[in-house]
């Protein structure tokens, strides 16, 4: 992994069209601005992992119709 040292207000450019801006630094928190093309999905990694895990757990092999019929929507 490439490790760079940057100061507040400085920018890292990735490829032609992705920019990472160091917006502010407070204690152990860094505020980062990201400018990227629309087709690039930018998400916090832990959110991606949470949703991926939830999706994988949700794969259903058998549907118990009686159970589903027993639930009335609100």
């Amino acid at each position, binding site marked *: 992994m490439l490790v760079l040292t940057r100061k507040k207000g400085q920018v890292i450019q990735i490829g032609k069209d992705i920019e990472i801006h160091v917006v502010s630094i407070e204690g152990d928190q860094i505020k980062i601005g990201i400018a990227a093309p*629309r*087709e*690039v*999905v930018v*998400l*916090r990694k832990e*959110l*991606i992992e*949470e*949703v*991926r*895990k*939830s*999706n*994988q*757990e*949700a*794969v*259903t*092999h058998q*549907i*118990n*119709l009686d*159970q*589903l*019929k*027993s*639930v*009335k*929507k*609100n």
Partner: protein
Amino acid sequence: MTLLNSDFFFQGSILGFENLDKFTLRSISNTAFYQLNSVEDPNIQFVLVHPFDWLSNYELNLNDNTLERIDLSNAEDAMVMNIVTLKEPFSSSTVNYMAPLIMNVKNGLATQYVIQDTRQYSSRAPLITNDIVKGGDAHVSTD
């Protein structure tokens, strides 16, 4: 709008299933549930619900990237659904309100959208809340 046997193209956006694109959506008759089956991998099947059936105040703001990804310009063309995780006992089943599936019924393009504000909706909210049993307003606890 027909829900029976509609094909949607998720373009690898269902996290954990990035290799899958085409899914078929069907309503499960006589229930409030839908099933979403992968065309490419018959082992992959999800159970879905309409969020508004369970949370009348569910809301989300789609960003431009998402709108563009499914070429959505008209809000009426969007269908929103959430993945259910069926569990034993059934009453402990959960709904992923954090990452809804957004489907454009006009062109069949679809995507899973992750709501960035984690305080808003849980990825594992109870499907059946006490309030539903009591017949009151539904709500989701955020964890």
